[in-house]
């Protein structure tokens, strides 16, 4: 599981480049909470600490959730989200290997439902065309720990919705794609900053594929389904629906495809099952993004497909050697 963490390094690096050091603080807070919660749960369950605590799974949960939160989100968001993920979504179901839902996504969903406003407060990317308020490391840390921005700024001055969120709001207000796209946060095919982060995640995911730590079925099926849905809808009405490249390079598309949906514990297990599972996540992500009320759809798409895993597994048993086709 260590390689999964290494594969996230490009994503984190670009995150820091575009949105400042906040994500690093979120990761540290998340990992510390994850290890503490994991240790407490193992102690309560009478399990040995060393092999379980250091298997990396709790750390990955924390890092994935940290990457999903706004960089300046107050400390108690990541702490409560990770604690919920580890204690309730993982250990209450039996711990490593027994959780039916992806713990990181359960944590994210709980936070999104409980504190929607806080989760929408993203930052503008640090690219040409923007003059984002640049916070020093100390200011970033203070903001996260106190929940208040530095005195020289207001929240409105330093935050910005994500491109996915902005597009959804604008389209809901009756704008066409063209009008919405006039916003400086959009680039030729994606959102500034976000497209690079997604490409970095794609690179990390490709590395995991090459190492055979993950298999191709889920990411390919999910991204293909997302691509097909977005292509069909934007071809039908280009004024009302974003194109496929925007969807592939926005929000948590790549993170979801390579790092979240591929969590083996909560995913379907046969080759055919993985294709169905991944495609389901792709379709649901598109539906929730386009017609739902949330800024991104990956988390809920993953959780809904987690629910279907026992059913998928049951109907996709491969033909065993020596059995009739």
């Amino acid at each position, binding site marked *: 599981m260590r390689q999964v963490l290494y594969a996230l390094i490009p994503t984190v690096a670009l995150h820091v480049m575009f949105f400042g050091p906040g994500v690093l603080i979120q990761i540290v807070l998340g990992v510390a909470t994850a290890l503490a919660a994991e240790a407490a749960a193992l102690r309560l369950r009478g399990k040995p600490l060393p092999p379980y605590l250091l298997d990396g799974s709790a750390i990955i949960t924390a890092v994935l959730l940290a990457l999903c939160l706004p960089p300046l989100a107050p400390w108690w968001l990541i702490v409560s989200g990770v604690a919920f993920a580890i204690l309730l979504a993982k250990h209450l179901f039996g711990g490593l290997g027994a959780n039916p839902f992806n713990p990181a996504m359960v944590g994210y969903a709980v936070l999104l439902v409980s504190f929607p406003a806080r989760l929408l407060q993203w930052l503008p990317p640090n690219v040409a065309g923007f003059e984002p308020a640049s916070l020093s490391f100390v200011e970033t840390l203070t903001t996260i720990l106190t929940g208040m921005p530095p005195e020289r700024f207001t929240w409105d001055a330093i935050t910005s919705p994500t491109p996915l969120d902005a597009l959804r709001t604008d389209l809901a207000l009756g704008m066409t794609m063209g009008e919405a796209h006039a916003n400086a946060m959009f680039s030729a095919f994606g959102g500034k900053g976000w497209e690079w982060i997604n490409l970095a995640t794609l690179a990390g995911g490709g590395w995991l594929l090459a190492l055979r730590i993950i298999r191709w079925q889920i990411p390919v099926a999910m991204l293909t389904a997302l691509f097909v849905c977005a292509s069909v809808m934007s071809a039908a009405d280009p004024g009302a629906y974003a194109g496929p490249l925007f969807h592939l390079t926005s929000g948590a598309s790549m993170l979801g495809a390579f790092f979240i949906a591929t969590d*083996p514990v909560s995913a379907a297990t*046969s080759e055919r099952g993985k294709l169905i599972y991944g495609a389901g996540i792709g379709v649901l992500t598109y539906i929730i993004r386009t017609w739902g009320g949330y800024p991104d759809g990956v988390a809920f798409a993953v959780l809904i497909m987690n629910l279907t895993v026992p059913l998928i597994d049951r109907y996709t048993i*491969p033909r*065993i050697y*020596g059995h009739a086709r």
Partner: protein
Amino acid sequence: MATSGTRGGLRLNAHKERSTTQALRAASPVEKLVLPLDQHAGAPAVPLVKPGERILRGQPIAQPGGTVSAWLHSPTSGTVAAIEPRPAPHRLGASTLSIVVANDGRDERHAGPAPSPFDQLAPEQLRELIARGGIVGLGGAVFPTAAKLNSAAGAADVRLLINGAECEPYISCDDMLMRERARDVVFGARVLLHALAAKTCVIAIEDDTPQAAAALEAAIADAHDERIQLRRVPSIYPAGGEKQLITAIFDVEVPSGGLPADVNTVCLNVGTAAAVASWIRDSQPLTSRIVTITGDGVLEQRNLDVALGTPLAALIYDCGGYTGRMSRLIMGGSMMGQALPHDDMPVIKATNCVIAASALDLQPRAAEMPCIRCGNCAVACPAILLPQQLHWYAKARDLDALETYGLMDCIECGCCDYVCPSQIPLAERFRDMKPALAERLAARTNASAARVRFEARSARLERIESERLAALAKKRQELAKKPS
């Protein structure tokens, strides 16, 4: 059933070169030989000799105890020292009734049947003769060869597959046999072709045994027998598994629960073919076999031609003794072999390899962690099972699900264990669960047989009753017609 070739499997480090550098030689004779009566598959053999009786090399000392059973011959001349329970490797050290032969060192030979050209015998006579040689499958299953031949003979277009694909790491006895006795293998194949009235024979070997391939090619050319063909398969464990090899060579799958005979194939090990040759050509019954002695825990790693009944301890002594690094004694290869509690047990017909393993050979298993459903096992499984699901249902002892997910199709090759990142001994778990499921399947078969019987009886009773009624009605009619 058409297939898309074999699936799964692993490329493993073979560890064979270490035991194949030295030429084959006979193991040093020992004073006492222990011959378990149940060392073959099927019913135990029944002793023909009594303690104190003098016997000769090659003399039958036990006869088959059933239709699926085998003859047993004395590997040397001497006296029957005892017939008593002795620890046996196939019982993992538990005792089983054995004939103990005291070697007199004179090696006097029993006058066996006079050799006659095998192609002048009828196939069924030849099969009976093969049974007399005590020959069983030397690939590890020790199924009586004549019984296998009898069950397949008579089928139209039966084909012979001689298995020289010795896929399991560490074992090199077949490789050595093919290098040094390729002619015996080819002669044996010709005998078996005649015994089966078969028209074609494939000798299959792995593509990493070039010396064996060259020797076999030369032997086939010398035999001028166009029915015999040499084929290579990729050395991906378990390529030499019977089902996997049949699929690789003939592109058919052995049906679930079926036998190679169901796809018109008889599969026999190269060692078995060579044993058939020694018996039919030279009147030497099966009283010795080639054994690989290997592992970092023994001084000299090599192959020996060993008289059956020789204690494992004597073999180790013959190879210079244990090294200081010796930690575990294994019979078989590193994937499917079984750990033995001690070395005071004899070589039997099934003993292909003895590994004196050090910690370098077989690392102790790390602590087992929970399954994370990564699916590596499903990719490696040559039987196309989902071991991660089987594991889940084996834990729950859910026999219905185990049946659905194909537990009985597991060939226990151990590929799933090998790739498991959580160090779960999957194959062992599956092996443990099989008897419970087998019992239930047998009960169901019995129940359905009983139902068929019951339905047949009901139908018969109904028929008798309706016939009776019909007869009665007829009689009444006749009575009614009669003027009273």
